[in-house]
C-alpha cells in the first residue's frame, strides 16, 4: 500500500502535473459545472437494438470536464476504484490534451477501460469518493465519462498501445470463464510474464459482456477491441471448452497448468417458483438476453428465435431487468413494464439506467409482485396475477421489506414475461472438484483479499464468489487474484517446485 501511495506522490509531483495545477485557480475549477453526456433521442433510439444511448463526450467537453478535477493531494477517488486506476493522472492528461497518454494510464491497471467507462456504477465508486461529492457537496467530476472518452479516443485514433509485458517465465496458468474477472486477471498475469490460457464454455469470448449487456449499452465491437488487445499481449483463448467436463482439472495439470483462476460466473437463473411459471413465453433474463445479444435472435438472418412480445413484463429491479425491458421495447413491445416488489428507492439498478428506461417509455409497476401465471390452450402465457405490496421494516439488506397487501390481487394481460430476480452459482466447478469448499449458497469460499480457495492452486473471483455483482467488482477480484497467485507461484519457484 505504501508503495502505491509513494508511486502516486511521485507521479503527482512530476513537472507537467505541477504546471497544470498552477495554471488555473481551484476556485475557478470548482465553479465549473459538470458536463452532460450527449444522448441519442429516446424516441429515435428505441427503434434500434444496437445503437448506443450515450454518445460520448467531444474533445472540448472532455477537456472542460477534466479542468474541474483539482488533482487532490489525497486522491480519494482512487480508493473508490476496485482496480485502482490512477484517476488524477489520466484526467490531467486529458486536460493537457494528451489523450493517448490518458488511455495508457488507464491500461496500467484496467484491462477493459472502454467497457468500464460505459458500465461501471461510478456514482457508487470513484465519483462517490470524489472530493466534489465528499467535501463540496457538488456534482462529482465525471470520471466515468472521461474514462470512456480516453479509451474511445485511443481506439478511434488507430494508435492502440499494447501494455508492456515482462519476459516470459514459462509458467502455465489457466483462467476459467472469459468474463470481466478473468479478462482482468489475464491482463495482469500476462504482464507478469505468465503463459495464460482463458477457457470459455460458450463459442464467444467475453462472458456477460457479450451474452448479457445489450449493444445499446455496450457495443460488442468495443468489447472485441479490448479482447484483441489482450490477444496481442499474448493471452490465449480456448472457446467451447468446459473445464471439469471437456477436460478435468487433473488433465490440465498433466498438460502443465500450475494454477487456476475460476471465474465461471453466477450461472443459474433464479425463478420464483410460483404457479404457471413454466408456461411458454416466460423466460429468464439470461435466456432472453442471450438469445438477443449472443445469438442475434432479433435479426432474421440468424436462426435462433426469440419471442417478440406486445405486452412484456420484466420481473425485478436490477440492471439486468432494465437491460431486458429496454430490449423488449426495442423489439417492438407496446407495453414494456418493470414489475418490482419494492419502490424506486430500493431499486438496485443504476440511476442512469432507470432514467434512460423512463425516457424510453418503460412503465414502472413498483410495489407489485407476481403470484401466478395463466396460459392459452397452447400453453403460452396470456395473463399474470399481481399482488400489491407496501414497505415494512428494513430487512437484512438494509432495504425496507416489501409486505403483501391482502386482497389486492389483480390481473393484467401479458404475452412475454422475463424473470430477472437474480442468479445462483453454477455447480459445474463444484461438481468437478468435490473437495472444494463452497458456501451454503454454492459460492466458492476464498480467503478474503487473496481470492485463494480451499485448494491452494485454485483461486476464484467474480460472481462465482460474490453470487451476483458488477463488472468492476469482478475485475477487482481478478486483479487481487492475479497478485496473490503471483505471490503463491513465486514461492513455489523459490522452493524449486518447478
Amino acid at each position, binding site marked *: 500500500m505504501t508503495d502505491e501511495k509513494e508511486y502516486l506522490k511521485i507521479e503527482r509531483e512530476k513537472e507537467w502535473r505541477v504546471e497544470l495545477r498552477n495554471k488555473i485557480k481551484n476556485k475557478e475549477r470548482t465553479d465549473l459545472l459538470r458536463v452532460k453526456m450527449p444522448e441519442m433521442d429516446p424516441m429515435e433510439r428505441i427503434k434500434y437494438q444496437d445503437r448506443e444511448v450515450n454518445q460520448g463526450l467531444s474533445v472540448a467537453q472532455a477537456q472542460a470536464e477534466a479542468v474541474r478535477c483539482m488533482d487532490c493531494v489525497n486522491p480519494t477517488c482512487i480508493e473508490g476504484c476496485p482496480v485502482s486506476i490512477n484517476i488524477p493522472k489520466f484526467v490531467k492528461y486529458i486536460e493537457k490534451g494528451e489523450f493517448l497518454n490518458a488511455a495508457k494510464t488507464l491500461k496500467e491497471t484496467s484491462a477493459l477501460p472502454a467497457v468500464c467507462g460505459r458500465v461501471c456504477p461510478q456514482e457508487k465508486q470513484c465519483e462517490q469518493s470524489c472530493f466534489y461529492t465528499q467535501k463540496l457537496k457538488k456534482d462529482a467530476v465525471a470520471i466515468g465519462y472521461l474514462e470512456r472518452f480516453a479509451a474511445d479516443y485511443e481506439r478511434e485514433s488507430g494508435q492502440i498501445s499494447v501494455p508492456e509485458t515482462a519476459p516470459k517465465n514459462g509458467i502455465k496458468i489457466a483462467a476459467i470463464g472469459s468474463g470481466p474477472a478473468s479478462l482482468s486477471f489475464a491482463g495482469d498475469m500476462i504482464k507478469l510474464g505468465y503463459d495464460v490460457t482463458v477457457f470459455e464454455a460458450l463459442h464467444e469470448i467475453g462472458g456477460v459482456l457479450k451474452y448479457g449487456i445489450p449493444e445499446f449499452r455496450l457495443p460488442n465491437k468495443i468489447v472485441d477491441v479490448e479482447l484483441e488487445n489482450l490477444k496481442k499481449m499474448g493471452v490465449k483463448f480456448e472457446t467451447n471448452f*468446459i473445464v471439469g467436463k*471437456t477436460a478435468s482439472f487433473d488433465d490440465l495439470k498433466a498438460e502443465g497448468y500450475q494454477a487456476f483462476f475460476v471465474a465461471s460466473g453466477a450461472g443459474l437463473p433464479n425463478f420464483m417458483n410460483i404457479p404457471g411459471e413454466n408456461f411458454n413465453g416466460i423466460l429468464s433474463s439470461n435466456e432472453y438476453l442471450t438469445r438477443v445479444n449472443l445469438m442475434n435472435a432479433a435479426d432474421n438472418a440468424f436462426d435462433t428465435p426469440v419471442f417478440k412480445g406486445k405486452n412484456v413484463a420484466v420481473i425485478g429491479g436490477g440492471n439486468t431487468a432494465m437491460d431486458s425491458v429496454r430490449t423488449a421495447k426495442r423489439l417492438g413491445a407496446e407495453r414494456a413494464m418493470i414489475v418490482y416488489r419494492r419502490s424506486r428507492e430500493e431499486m438496485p439498478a443504476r440511476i442512469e439506467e432507470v432514467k434512460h428506461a423512463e425516457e424510453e417509455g418503460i412503465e414502472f409497476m413498483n410495489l407489485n409482485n407476481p403470484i401466478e401465471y395463466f396460459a392459452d390452450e397452447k400453453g403460452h402465457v396470456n395473463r399474470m396475477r399481481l399482488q400489491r405490496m407496501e414497505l415494512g421494516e428494513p430487512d437484512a439488506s438494509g432495504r425496507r421489506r416489501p409486505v403483501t397487501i391482502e386482497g389486492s390481487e389483480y390481473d393484467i394481460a401479458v404475452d412475454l414475461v422475463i424473470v430477472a430476480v437474480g442468479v445462483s452459482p453454477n455447480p459445474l466447478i463444484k461438481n468437478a472438484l468435490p473437495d472444494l469448499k463452497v458456501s451454503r449458497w454454492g459460492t466458492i469460499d476464498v480467503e478474503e483479499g487473496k481470492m485463494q480457495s480451499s485448494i491452494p492452486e485454485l483461486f476464484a473471483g467474480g460472481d462465482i464468489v460474490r453470487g451476483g455483482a458488477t463488472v468492476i467488482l469482478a475485475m477487482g477480484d481478478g486483479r487481487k487474484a492475479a497478485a496473490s497467485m503471483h505471490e503463491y507461484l513465486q514461492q513455489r519457484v523459490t522452493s524449486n517446485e518447478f
Partner: protein
Amino acid sequence: MNKIIEKEFFSPKVACFVIEAPRIARSRKPGHFVILRVDEKGERIPLTITDADEKAGTITLVVQKMGVSSEKLCALEPGDEILDVVGPLGRATDIHKVGTILACGGGVGVAPLLPIVQGFKKAGNRVISILAARSKDLIILEEEIRKWSDEVIIMTDDGSYGRKGLVTAGAEEVILREKVDECVAIGPAVMMKFTSLLTKKYNIPTQASLNAMMVDGTGMCGACRVSVGGQTKFTCVDGPEFDAHQIDFNELMLRLGGYTELEKEAYQHYFESSIK
C-alpha cells in the same frame, strides 16, 4: 472447428455423423450430450453422443431433420467442418448392475439409447431392447443395439417390420413374461409418457432422457426447465435423465411446442433464401 469424418443416412430424414472431437471422445460417458452450432448464424442445438472412438478421437452423433439447424447440419458432407462443438454436457447415466434392464427406444431416440444399452450390458446386466418406430425405414441402429442386447424386439406402427403395435405393447409383454428390474425410455415425449405410465403400473423404476430446448447447455439460460416431482429442474445440468415417474410430461410437451410458430417461419425463410 470440428471436421466431419463420415456421414451416413439411416433414413431420408435421419443422418449419422462421425466427427473429430478428441477431448470429448476421451471424457464422454453414456448419457452425455454436446451442443453444436453449424455456422456463424446457427442456433446452438443439443445432440446426445451416440458413440465415441477414443483412439480415433471421434464422436458419433445422430440427427433428425426437424428444422433449419438440423437441415443445415444434414447438408454438410465429410471433410466439412462444424463451427462449434462443446461437451460433454449433462450428467452421465447411472450405470450399475441391477439384473434385467428393459431399454425402450422410439424413433431417433434409439441413438441416445445405444450408449446406455452398451453401458448396462458391459456392467453385467441382462438387457432387453425394444426398438419402435412408425415404419421399417425409421428403425435405426438395429445391428449395434443387437450387439449389446440379450434380446431385441422391433415394433412398428404399421407392421412393416417386426411386430405391429406401439412400444408399450412390446414392453408389457416382457414385463408380464419376466422380472424387469429397471427400465430406460428414450424417444418422443409422448412415447416416454406412456412407457412411464406402464412401468409405473408395475412399479419398475424408470429413467427417461429428455430432449428439451436449450440455448447454452450449461445451466445459464433455463430454457430447458422441466417439472420433476413438483420441482423445477434444468435438463442440461440436472439431467438429461430423470425419474420418469416424476416427470410432468404434459408440461414438457407444451414446452417443446413453444417455438413451433417461430420455427415454421424460420424454416420458410431458410428455404426461400436457399432458392435465391
